[in-house]
């Protein structure tokens, strides 16, 4: 895990921001009359695409790989999660934004944990 404060805070801010934006876009599109599965799948795809676009301004200071990979996952999960809830019940804009922020924070935490496990010298047989 990158322990430099700038990158720790930067990664968190980037993913929370992307999570909120994707959640708000989903909230604008999906209503309680939507089929839940259709909403989840379509908003997951939309979230991925938005993540792939929104990572770019953050990548200029934080690095392309370190922003692109988490941003796509944050977009995917935020779209799917908020899409599911928005299809099941009426959702306020604030609630949608909070859910998006939560997903963004959880996603970057997941990436930090995985990165901590994978970083360092790998087995000599490791591919990739």
């Amino acid at each position, binding site marked *: 895990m990158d322990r430099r404060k700038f990158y720790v805070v930067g990664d968190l801010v980037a993913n929370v921001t992307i999570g909120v934006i994707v959640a708000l876009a989903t909230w604008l599109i999906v209503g309680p009359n939507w089929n839940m599965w259709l909403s989840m799948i379509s908003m997951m795809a939309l979230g991925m695409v938005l993540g792939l676009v929104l990572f770019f301004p953050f990548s200029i200071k*934080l690095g*392309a790989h370190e922003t692109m990979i988490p941003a796509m*996952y944050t977009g995917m999960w935020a779209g799917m999660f908020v899409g599911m809830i928005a299809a099941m019940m009426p959702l306020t804009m604030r609630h949608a934004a909070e859910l998006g922020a939560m997903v963004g924070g959880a996603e970057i935490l997941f990436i930090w944990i995985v990165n901590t496990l994978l*970083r*360092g010298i*790998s087995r*000599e047989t*490791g591919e*990739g």
Partner: protein
Amino acid sequence: MADLLTQAKWDKLAPRFDGMTSQGAEKRWEPAKRDLFSHMRGKVLFLALGTGLDIQHFPPGQDILAIDISPKMVELAQPRLAAYEGDISARVMDVHEMDFAPESFDQVFTSCTFCSVPNPVDGLKVLNRVLKPGGQLFMFEHTGSRFYPFRQMMDLMTLISRRIGPDMNRHTVRNVREAGFRIIEVKNVYLDVVKTIRAERH
């Protein structure tokens, strides 16, 4: 004849290259790159030079020949080449068509190179040929991932990224082995996607 499509792609990207990478990736990867380049000894071949951003991480006083397929990149690298405190020169050259005599170099260093070389195993075989027996290959590369869900995501990203620049899903460690090198060490820098590879010519 050089791969004109690859050359044109990187020539087109050259004016925007520093803006895209100098503040983000270069700063973030600086510790790992400095660590890798600290192994430079003897006659060194470096690829791909790009706009010369990596030169700031080279230890001073080395004897380095750098190549890049893009004339525009090499042109933009001139100030950084001039500022290096050591013996460094640059040539426009395609890795597939390197005209160096066999066993010309003690070491070869690469930096984000084999994400873009069209035929990576062939290119690595050329590096094997120009290395002296026992010579070492040091690589700083981004590759695909072995793990779900990153592997699938890198495959998806490559559909877009290869149109403007590099592939995101290369199996570079496997390619190095296939080109006849013995892997000494693979060190992950970010996930198992950004990594350093150290290998030796058999």
